[in-house]
Each structure stands twice: as structure tokens, then as C-alpha cells.
């Protein structure tokens, strides 16, 4: 059995660790609130945007915009990998990276991949795996994200797509479902996938949206303006979701760590008390033994 002093030092160490994990938990919680507010602020924009875009695309000429047209041959794919910059958030980054990894493996060896990284963890993985990195953005995820980050990156992606640097663009991000659940998701960004027409039609019957709108300039030109922007919107929402998920994941991880600390402290305290009692008993035995000897 460990000596009294050793156990005591260990208890002290675990208590200090618990203080740290608890503080990190609280920091993550307050950041999470901020991130959720951002997400909610963005929701009204995104909803309105989708509404207008959906209405317009129904009216404009079919398949005229190059952003909608798939390339004839798909040999180069591009992934936008969103991860966090720092660890200590449980399996968060591992899930995202394995999602990207399995996607690359499924595609087979004929497809050439390149990556845009948001977050350090994903970048480090790409470096290790020697996947070509087109650009990297550190210190974005987990902070208050400005829209111009998404629009600048999005513009670069669209240019690359139109130049033929790659034929398809996907984004790997973490979807925020609830505090305890974040799901690594992959979504096609370019060419812009067709809208789910079934749903649109159902809505159109209720409300013939945009039916008699006057458009300035023409619907086609408007669509040309809006489509690139829809890519930015998608990208921005992916960044926001990943950011929120990171804080939620970190909060959960730190909560678990604090609980584990509590368990450890309990066990160690038990061991400490046992050791203390054992030493008292031993001492008593000594005294009693000594007294007996004197009397004898």
C-alpha cells in the first residue's frame, strides 16, 4: 500500500486537474452560447435566401449556369475539411477525419484529391497523409466567424471549379444536432446539386411563390448573382455548425473528465483513510505491546 504522503499528493494532483477541466468546461459553455447565438442570427438569412433561390431557380432557364453543370469527367475532387484547432474535445476531430478518410478511400485510386483546411487538426492529418493542401485557414473554427471568410474562400473554390482545377467540391463538417450529438457529415457543394423538387412542388401548391415577381435584372441574371452566394452561404453554415459542435463536444468531454476526476478522488480518499487507519492501528499495537512488556 502506498504511503500516506504519496496518496495525499496524488489527491492534490487530481483535484488540480479537476479545477482545470472544470474551468475548460465553463469556457466551452460560454463560447457555445455565443456560437449558438450566431447560428440563430444566421438562420433567418439562410431561410430567406433559400426561399428566394428556390423560387428563382424554378423560373430561370434550366441548367444554364456553369455552377450547376457537372463536369463530363470527374477525376479531381476537392474536399473542404472543417476540424478544430485544438484537441481536448473527445472524438470530435477523429470522427470528421475518418469521414473524410473513408470518402477518399471509397473513391478509389483513380481520383485525385486536394483539400482546403479549416482547422489545425485536419491540416496536420493531411500533411501526414501527404494529401495536397490547396489552402489552409487556422484560427477560424471556434472563434466568432465573419461572413467574409466564407465568401473569400468560396470565391476561390468557385474560381478553381470553373478553371477545371477540380471537378467536384465536397465539404466535411460536423452537424450540430443537440448538445450531446454532433454528426460528421459530407455534402456536395459544387456543382450545385439540384434542389429537392418534390418538396418545392408541395410548397408551391400552397403558395405560388414568386409567381408574379418583377425581376431586375432578368431572372437568369439574378440567378447568376445568387448562385455563387449560395455557395458562400452553405460554406458559412458549415463553418458555424462545426464551430458550435466543437464547443459542445469540448463541453461534454470536459464534463466527463471532471466526473472521472471525482471518481478518482473518491477512490484515493478511501485509500488514504485506509492507510491512515492502518498506521494508527499499528501505532496503538506498538504502545500496547510496550506497556505489556513493562508490566510483565
Amino acid at each position: 500500500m502506498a504511503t500516506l504522503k504519496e496518496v495525499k499528493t496524488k489527491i492534490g494532483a487530481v483535484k488540480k486537474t479537476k479545477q482545470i477541466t472544470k474551468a475548460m468546461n465553463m469556457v466551452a459553455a460560454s463560447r457555445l452560447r455565443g456560437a449558438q447565438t450566431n447560428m440563430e442570427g444566421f438562420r433567418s438569412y439562410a431561410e430567406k435566401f433559400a426561399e428566394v433561390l428556390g423560387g428563382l431557380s424554378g423560373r430561370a432557364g434550366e441548367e444554364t449556369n456553369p455552377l450547376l453543370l457537372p463536369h463530363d469527367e470527374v477525376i479531381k475532387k476537392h474536399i473542404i475539411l472543417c476540424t478544430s484547432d485544438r484537441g481536448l474535445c473527445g472524438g470530435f476531430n477523429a470522427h470528421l477525419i475518418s469521414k473524410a478518410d473513408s470518402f477518399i478511400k471509397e473513391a478509389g485510386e483513380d481520383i485525385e484529391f486536394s483539400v482546403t483546411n479549416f482547422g489545425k487538426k485536419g491540416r496536420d492529418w493531411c500533411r501526414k497523409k501527404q494529401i495536397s493542401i490547396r489552402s489552409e485557414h487556422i484560427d477560424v473554427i471556434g472563434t466568432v466567424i465573419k461572413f467574409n471568410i466564407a465568401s473569400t474562400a468560396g470565391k476561390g473554390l468557385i474560381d478553381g471549379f470553373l478553371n477545371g482545377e477540380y471537378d467536384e467540391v465536397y465539404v466535411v463538417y460536423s452537424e450540430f444536432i443537440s448538445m450531446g450529438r454532433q454528426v460528421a457529415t459530407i455534402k456536395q457543394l459544387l456543382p450545385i446539386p439540384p434542389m429537392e423538387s418534390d418538396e418545392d412542388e408541395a410548397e408551391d401548391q400552397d403558395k405560388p411563390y414568386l409567381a408574379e415577381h418583377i425581376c431586375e435584372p432578368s431572372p437568369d441574371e439574378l440567378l447568376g448573382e445568387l448562385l455563387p452566394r449560395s455557395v458562400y452561404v452553405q460554406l458559412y453554415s458549415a463553418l458555424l455548425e462545426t464551430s458550435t459542435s466543437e464547443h459542445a463536444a469540448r463541453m461534454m468531454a470536459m464534463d466527463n473528465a471532471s466526473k472521472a476526476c471525482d471518481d478518482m478522488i473518491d477512490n484515493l480518499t478511501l485509500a488514504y483513510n485506509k492507510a491512515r487507519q492502518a498506521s494508527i492501528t499499528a501505532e496503538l499495537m506498538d504502545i500496547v505491546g510496550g506497556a505489556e512488556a513493562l508490566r510483565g
Partner: protein
Amino acid sequence: MAGNITLEVVTPEKVVVSEEVQIAVAPGSLGEFGVLVGHTTFLTTLKTGMIHYTGADGGQRYIFASGGFAEALPDKLTVLAESAERRRDIDTGRAQAAMERAQKRLEKEDEDIDFARAKAALERALHRIRIAGTKQ
């Protein structure tokens, strides 16, 4: 006046304005347009510039908006912009710095710069400064 319309100015980051107004005027890409109650449904892209409106209390207000589009309905005008600020929220110092930066970039003609981007930045900065200087 027949009644008020709802003006909503929304950016990806937040809702900038959401209130009842008497009239709102916005810079459409094919010309400035005003919206009163009963406006025909109308959709347009916006130029960088100033949206101004008369509030329900009769006061004139000014908003800077760039990179957006607007949808007018008989009782509502919705503006979706990449960035938008109320006049009192405009950071003049930042706009001034942005203007100087953009001008410097444009002066260096020989270098391979993103001309369109610098020009857009300059335009944004100039509009911000102009709106911030507007008398109430």
C-alpha cells in the same frame, strides 16, 4: 399615408433592422427604388450604397448595405446583404483606413493586383464615410 410596411435588413451575422416604416428607399442595381405600402412584388440585386427610410415616428434613418439583394412585397421589404450597418454603427476610422489602403493599391498599377476587389473595397469605404457624414 395609407399605412406602414415592415423593413427587414438581414446579414449572415445578425438582423440589423426589423421595424415598421413609412417608406424605404434602396439602391437597386438598375436604379434606386422606393417602397411604400402596396408595392408590387419585386426582386432585385442591390448596389453598394445607402438604404434610407422614414420610421413610423417620422424620423429619417440611414443604413449602409453592400453585396445584397432585396425583395419587396406589398407589406414588406426584405434586404439580404453581406454586410449592413446603421449609420450610428459605422466605424468611420476603419472606413477611412480601408479607403486609404484601397487607394494605395489602385495607385500601384503595374503590380498584379485584384483590381475589382480593391475597387469594391474603395467603393464600400466611400459609401460608409458618406453615410456617416449625412446630417440627420
